[in-house]
């Protein structure tokens, strides 16, 4: 009998019972706790992350090949390399993850073994939103950790990572071998520049993409437009959209991304392709000035107003919705949107009848594409009639790697002809190597088109750290116009925001 007050209790049916509370309950809980903690501690031993004891914030010396313990590498002492990518089998970028785990790692290890070196490679995949992956990379670099070869570094991140000394030029980490690599001849200058900063190569691009105007041929046919429609100016686009609107009021004629909800997709698939059609890119490398409240910026905003204003040629709700981009894809695949400006990503991964997230069964016969016209013929950058924007990501070396020679060997292997060919064996995409592209793209008409017709006329985004915030200012300007502000006012707001970002000295304004 307990010395303490007996507990009154109601059992399940509501009848009162008396129960002595014995300590057994607490002993059980304590034991469970101990077991859980022990299991947790056992299961979560640190993986092979090469985090050194570097003090936070200091980057370890680069390029030294001293392994901890000072063992020499000659004579087959085992070397461990790690590849990280924002890819996971069965999930995000799973083709990349599969390629790395089933081709790259076994083949490279065999190759190294044949040369008498004992190298094991592991893959640290993750599936996260791009910004989160970037944060993870930043934290790892900051503390001297991270994988040896990092795949999937966006081209627009190169500047800020380089400025923070998180990544170093390839020839500093990989040595002279990085400069004399024969693969460079197969990689276009644009692709090389994409992963460069201040004229130095920081990584190897993994590909470039391009943007075109997609259209549903049946929707255009119903509006009296030809199956090989190719607008020559912005006015042509508007005319076509108006024709679609009259003939088929149930369809949204035109979708060109706007607004902040779509993020970088607004700038890269909306604002910038239009801007380069007015003759300037957002940043001028020679004058080192950003476009402010210029006539060209105002032209783009006026075009947005033409689309999303009272004419109803576009759907403003999509631009303001949280999942607007997903919605635009869905509607295009359901033929509820006539014309859509997007990159080859749409073709490969969205409306692809095999495995796309919004498959369009008759994609190959019914979806057409056209070059993006300049505002009027000859008004594009470099006097072009047609324009586009390209971007991509690439792979870099970790300056804190303990085995820089082997890491470079791995990186260059992943960019070799055989490896890149293997990477597109399941799904064709535009790679960074012209030899591989020539051999593999023939199967896919859209990708061939982008590689042959779009790349020669394309432009890229500036690789400066502040680009991200300028991009957000552009998105906001387009959003203000969609929400009803006049292009002139939106341009003024944009210039104010830009001044706070880069300072008045670096802004080209006028008109």
């Amino acid at each position, binding site marked *: 009998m307990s010395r303490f007050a007996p507990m009154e209790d109601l059992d399940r049916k*509501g009848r009162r019972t008396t129960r002595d509370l014995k300590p057994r309950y607490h002993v059980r809980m304590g034991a469970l706790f101990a077991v859980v903690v022990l299991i947790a501690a056992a299961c979560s031993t640190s993986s092979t992350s090469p985090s050194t004891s570097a003090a936070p914030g200091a980057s370890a010396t680069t390029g030294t090949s001293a392994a901890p313990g000072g063992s020499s590498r000659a004579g087959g002492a085992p070397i461990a390399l790690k590849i990280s990518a924002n890819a996971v089998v069965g999930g995000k970028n799973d083709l990349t993850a599969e390629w790395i785990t089933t081709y790259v790692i076994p083949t490279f290890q065999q190759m190294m073994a044949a040369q008498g070196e004992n190298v094991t490679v592991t893959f640290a995949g993750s599936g996260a939103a791009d*910004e989160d992956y*970037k*944060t993870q990379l*930043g*934290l790892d670099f*900051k503390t001297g950790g991270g994988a040896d070869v990092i795949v999937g570094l966006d081209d627009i*991140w190169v*500047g*800020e*990572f380089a*400025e*923070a*000394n*998180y990544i170093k030029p390839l020839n500093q980490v990989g040595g002279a071998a990085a400069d004399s690599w024969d693969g460079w001849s197969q990689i276009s200058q644009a692709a090389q520049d994409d992963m460069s900063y201040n004229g130095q190569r920081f990584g190897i691009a993994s590909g470039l993409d391009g943007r075109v105007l997609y259209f549903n041929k049946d929707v255009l046919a119903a509006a009296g437009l030809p199956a090989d429609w190719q607008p020559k100016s912005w006015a042509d686009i508007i005319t076509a959209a108006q024709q679609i609107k009259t003939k088929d009021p149930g369809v949204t004629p035109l979708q060109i991304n706007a*607004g*902040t*909800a779509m993020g970088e997709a607004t700038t890269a698939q909306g604002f910038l392709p239009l801007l380069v059609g007015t003759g300037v890119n957002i940043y001028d490398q020679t004058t080192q000035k950003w476009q402010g409240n210029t006539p060209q910026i105002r032209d783009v905003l006026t075009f947005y107003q033409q689309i999303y204003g009272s004419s109803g040629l576009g759907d403003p*709700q999509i631009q*303001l*919705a*949280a*999942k607007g981009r997903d919605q635009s894809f869905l509607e295009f695949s359901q033929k509820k949107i006539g014309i859509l400006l997007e990159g080859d990503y749409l073709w490969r991964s969205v409306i692809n009848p095999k495995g796309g997230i919004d498959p369009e069964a008759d994609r190959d016969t019914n979806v057409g594409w056209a070059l993006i016209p300049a505002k009027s013929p000859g008004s594009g950058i470099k006097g072009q009639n047609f324009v586009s924007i390209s971007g991509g990501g690439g792979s870099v070396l970790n300056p804190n790697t303990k085995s820089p020679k082997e890491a470079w060997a791995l990186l260059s292997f992943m960019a070799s002809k055989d490896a890149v060919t293997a990477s597109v064996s399941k799904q064709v995409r535009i790679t960074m190597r012209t030899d591989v592209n020539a051999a593999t793209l023939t199967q896919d008409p859209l990708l061939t088109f982008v590689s042959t017709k779009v790349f020669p006329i394309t432009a890229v985004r500036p690789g400066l*750290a502040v680009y*991200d*915030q300028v991009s*957000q200012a552009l998105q906001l300007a387009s*959003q*203000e116009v969609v*929400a009803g502000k006049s292009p002139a006012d939106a341009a003024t707001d944009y210039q104010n925001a830009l001044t706070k970002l880069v300072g008045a000295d670096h802004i080209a304004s006028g008109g």
Partner: protein
Amino acid sequence: MGASNAATVLSKRAAAAFVAPAFVLIAVFLIFPALWTLFLGVTDYALTGTQALHPQVVGAANYASALSDPRFLNSLWVTLLYVFGSAVVGQAVLGFILAWAFRAWRGPIRSAVEILVILAWIIPGSVVAFLWIAFLDTKEGTLNGLLGNAAIPWLFSWPLLSIIVVNIWRGTAFSMLLFGGALTTLPPSQLEAARLAGASGWQQIRDIVLPSLRGHIMTNLLLISLWTFNDFAPFLITAGGPNFATDTLPVYIFRNAFRNLQFGYGAAISTIMLLINLVIGLAYLRVLRARD
């Protein structure tokens, strides 16, 4: 409640021993990083770029920048409406009503409703966004379908109301749990006596239950207000729009600071939010103590 005898029940030494483990954990994993973060607020630290390499102390520049931004004031106002509408009026009241209704009720219907309420709390935030976007869609949403194929653009014409309703849906479970637990500590005899004397349910609540549960109510309101104030989930449903109509402070911070990994600026705004929540907390204390 025997407070005058409290000191004899537990010696100071035992009390210190009881508090020590929690104190150590809090000191290392809460107070230390929190103070560090507050310090970041006076720097221009960012995770990438030159500010990562050479962060500078900028004093009150971050604070000045935030407070002089008209969008900041807009965000503050939207957040206050969001907190008051969804937490105070919505979650607390609905949670209490459900806890009261469930207190002496067992059965399949009660269990079903309870599980539904809990499920709404548990489903991951990213999935909840899809649920509500599907529910509130203008052209093919479930709600519009139930309303006879109306085409009401909920997320565009009533965005703040929409996210308030979503937050009530999502957060009522906690209030229901807390009040449910609190109600079990009430002696049934008091309520029994009142009922026999002819008091209606509402009078029982007003005169017996609410006064007894004053502490719990206060705790609940403070917690859910603080949590709702810092809630980022609306971003997934409305992305702060349309056109900043639902740009709550967490969305504002994300947009202006964390999206660009500007941790110094973000820490400054977070500090401002902390001070605002302190004021709100003190306001609650004042209002509820005044009832004495």
